[in-house]
Every structure is written in structure tokens, then in C-alpha cells.
């Protein structure tokens, strides 16, 4: 997956006495979907704000596309969808995007293209105030990607969406990533992260407590057990070749053998239990 798009070293940020981020290190590689996971208040939004130059850090180093986060050179290469992105309610879908094509100095033809991508082409003349919540979210998404950024920051893109709209948004993210866009995504939804992310980092109280590929983490924290289901019983045995062989010898009617691996959520919960 090539070189690093973002490199963060010893990043810290406090608000008064609240420590929002404490000595965080991580990298994001070109072309990946990186999930920043954690419960609310963990410091996810603060991290995005620091990475995108909306906040100054207290200490540490951030390199983003080879520049510092405040550099105006990179602004055209990144797209940011925050949890409170606003739209112009009294303007049409089309006019909302038109304004941003002028700001970014890009061709108007991008509007139709991007509306097609988020499936809003038919609503282009509608006023934003008439749109449903899901349509709004998709429009915000369209605006975030209208200048074809190579790096996307998405702060809880599916929070507060109904399951089917959330799914639509996830599909769009995957489609963009397949075309080469690097995605930094925060979420508190562990299943979503498991489904979408190439790598994740768990954030809790401003600390990164674990990071890696979802598969890798699930194996690492697996209880190393096998679930055996027969017509009489349903039980666990340790994950061991010899024990399994022995078991199989005195079972007459085997219904199912299943390796038991934890979900990402269980990994996270066990990690946070350890910590406290």
C-alpha cells in the first residue's frame, strides 16, 4: 500500500484540565481506509481537528501529505466531513455545490458527476430544506468529494443515520476508496469498522490502546477455543490439534465445528476492561 499519507508522533492536546489526546502515534498509508475507533469523548473529533488544522496541538508532530496541517497547499487535496457540516438551506442542491466549485476553482461539470455518484441527480433542483436526513448527508458527502480529494476525513459519517442510509454512505466510501482515495474515518460503530477498514486504532480516553488490521486483532485476542455442537451437546474445547482429534473420536453425531473469534467490539471491551 505504499507510503504514508499521514504521520503523527507524540500528539497531545488538552482543553484546560481535560486531556483529550495523550501522546498518540500512528501512520496512515496511501490507499487505505483507516478507522479511528472509540466511545464518545475518546478524542476522535479532536484528532481530526488537529490533523486538518482546525486546532493547534499542545505538542507532537503531524505530517499530512508531506506538509504541516496548517499549510494551504494541501487544502485542495483533502476533503473533510465533520459531524456538524452545514448546508445552505434556502439554496438548491445544485447551487450548494455550485458555490463550492467556484471556491475550489473547478469545472461545473463536476457537479453532475458527483451528484450521480451519491445518487442525488434527480434532486438537484430541490431546496436543501426539503431534503430528508439521508439525502442531506449524501449532499454533504458530495460537497466533501467534489474537488476529488486524495485524502478524506470523515467524522462519524454514519452516526444518526438509519441503517439503510448508513449502508448507502458506506458503499460510497468503499467505492471511492476502490478508486484510490485514502480515508481516515472515525466511528464508534465497531461492526462498521470491521466491515470497512483495512486498519483500525482503538482510542480510549485520549490513548491509542491497540492498532492493527481487524483480522489480526481478532486473532490476537481470540480465546483460542473451538465450539463443538452435537445432537446432544454444545460446548467449547481449547484450540489444539490433539484435543480436537480426541474429541472427534467419541462423538457420534457432529452437527457443527466452529472456531470462536471475538468481534472487534469484544476485543475493544476486553482491552478497556484491562486498562481500568
Amino acid at each position, binding site marked *: 500500500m505504499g507510503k504514508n499519507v499521514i504521520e503523527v508522533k507524540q500528539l497531545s492536546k488538552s482543553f484546560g484540565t481535560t486531556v483529550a489526546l495523550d501522546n498518540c502515534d500512528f501512520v496512515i498509508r496511501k490507499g487505505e481506509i483507516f478507522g479511528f475507533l472509540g466511545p464518545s469523548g475518546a478524542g476522535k473529533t479532536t484528532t481530526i481537528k488537529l490533523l*486538518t488544522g*482546525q486546532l493547534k496541538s499542545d505538542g507532537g508532530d503531524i505530517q499530512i501529505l508531506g506538509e504541516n496541517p496548517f499549510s*494551504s497547499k494541501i*487544502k*485542495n487535496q483533502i476533503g*473533510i466531513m*465533520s459531524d*456538524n*457540516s*452545514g*448546508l*445552505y*438551506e*434556502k*439554496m438548491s442542491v445544485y*447551487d450548494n455545490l455550485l*458555490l*463550492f466549485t*467556484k*471556491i*475550489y*476553482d473547478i469545472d461545473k461539470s463536476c457537479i453532475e458527476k458527483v451528484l450521480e455518484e451519491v445518487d442525488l441527480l434527480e434532486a438537484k433542483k430541490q431546496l436543501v430544506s426539503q431534503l430528508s436526513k439521508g439525502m442531506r448527508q449524501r449532499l454533504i458527502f458530495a*460537497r466533501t468529494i467534489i474537488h476529488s480529494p486524495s485524502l478524506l476525513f470523515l467524522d462519524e459519517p454514519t452516526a444518526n443515520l438509519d441503517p439503510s442510509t448508513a449502508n448507502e454512505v458506506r458503499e460510497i466510501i468503499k467505492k471511492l476508496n476502490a478508486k484510490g482515495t485514502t480515508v481516515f474515518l472515525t466511528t464508534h460503530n465497531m461492526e462498521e469498522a470491521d466491515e470497512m477498514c483495512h486498519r483500525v486504532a482503538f482510542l480510549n480516553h485520549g490513548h491509542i490502546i491497540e492498532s492493527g488490521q481487524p483480522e489480526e486483532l481478532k486473532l490476537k485476542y481470540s480465546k483460542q477455543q473451538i465450539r463443538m455442537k452435537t445432537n446432544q451437546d454444545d460446548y467449547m474445547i481449547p484450540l489444539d490439534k490433539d484435543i480436537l482429534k480426541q474429541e472427534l473420536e467419541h462423538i457420534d453425531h457432529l452437527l457443527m465445528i466452529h472456531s470462536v473469534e471475538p468481534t472487534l467490539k469484544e476485543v475493544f471491551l476486553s482491552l478497556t476492561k484491562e486498562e481500568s
Partner: protein
Amino acid sequence: MNLRICKALFMKDFKNCFVNKNVFLMLALPVFFGVIYKFLLGDILQGATGGFVMVLCIIMTISIVPLNVLANMVAEEKEKHTLRSLMLANVSATDFLLSKAFVALVLMLIDGILIFFVCQEPMEYFGYFLIFYILTSLSVLFFGALVGLLSKDQMSAGTLSSPLMILLMLPPMFSQLNEMIGKIAVIFPTTSFQTLYVQLSSHQNFWNQDTMIAIIVCIVWILLGILAFGYGYKKKGLDD
């Protein structure tokens, strides 16, 4: 400053002003008063001195548009988080505020010119009228931007701007009533406009102590406005 961005923002705000009912009402109000005074109360006011109705309506515009309309436009974008979206797309605070201030200035000009014609003022005064009017408009404009800067939503913009609006509107209207009020009224740019225009239409020598003070008051207000705005901006930033 980026001209392309300023132009795009200007076009958007200018169009939206006529869609936004509150803004439209505020703009229409002084012109509406002009029509009422001139055509319905014309007989009663027949004895009034040069440009009385016009000056009254202009004072209203100068008090209302920068403070109410400009401050609300800035506050609305904060409240609805559209300002944040703009800043994330690399729109600078300067581009944002300049384009808004320019919209307010253009709206004031439209209002002022309408009022001038509704009140059927003599055309030979039109050029001077514009100069006095722009001078006094600028005196208040930066304070309107400051109110927008200080308010987090339209509600707080209203709370801040209402007393200021009254402060600007009342002194020139009551300056003739009593000497004390008359003296205090001089320090307001709304009074300056009145002084300058009344002197112009009196056909006497334009330059005297009063007109000079009026112009100095406007310049002082403009400078104070820029300073206050600069200070507020440095202290608070546009959006935190």
C-alpha cells in the same frame, strides 16, 4: 484576499438576501416608511425643512442595515455551521467578511437610492447625497461586522444589535428637542448625515464648524470601527 472566492460569496449572499424574509423586511422597511410619509402624510409635513423625510428614512437605513442585516448574515452562517464548511474549503476570514460587508454596502446603496427617488429630492444633490451616505454607512458597517463576530447565533446578534440600533436612530430625531440631547447627538454618524444634508439644501455656504465636525465624527467612527473589529477578531477569531 482571493477575488474569485469573494465574488462567489458575494453572489450567493446577494441572492439569498432577497429570499430571506427577515432581511428583505429590514431592507423594505425604510423605503416603505418613505412612501408612507411622502404620499400619505405629505400634507401634514408640508412645512418641514429640506429633505426631512428623506433624512429620516436614511437614518433608519444606516442604523438597521449594517447592524441588523450584516450582523445577522454573519451570525446565521455560524449558527448553521456553513461558515465552518467554507473555512474547511480554504475560504479565509477576510474573504468571508469582506464579501459580506460588501453585500451590506450594496444593499444600503440600493435602499438609499430608492429612498432618494421616493422622496423626490432634487437631482443636483444626488452626487453629494451619495458621498455623505457612503461615508456614514462605513461609520457603522464595521460595528455591524463586529456584532456578527461576537454573536454565536442570530438570537444573540439581535440582542446585541437592537440597543445599538436605537442608539443610532434616536439622537438625530430628538436633537432639536433639547440642547443637551442636541449636544450628545453630534457624536453619532447618523446626526452627521442629517447635518451635512440639511446644510447642503440650505443654499448657504457648505463649510462651517458643524459640517466639519460631522465629517470628523464619521472618520473617527470608521477608525474606531476598524480598531474595534480588529481587536475583536484578534481576541476571538471568526469561529472557535
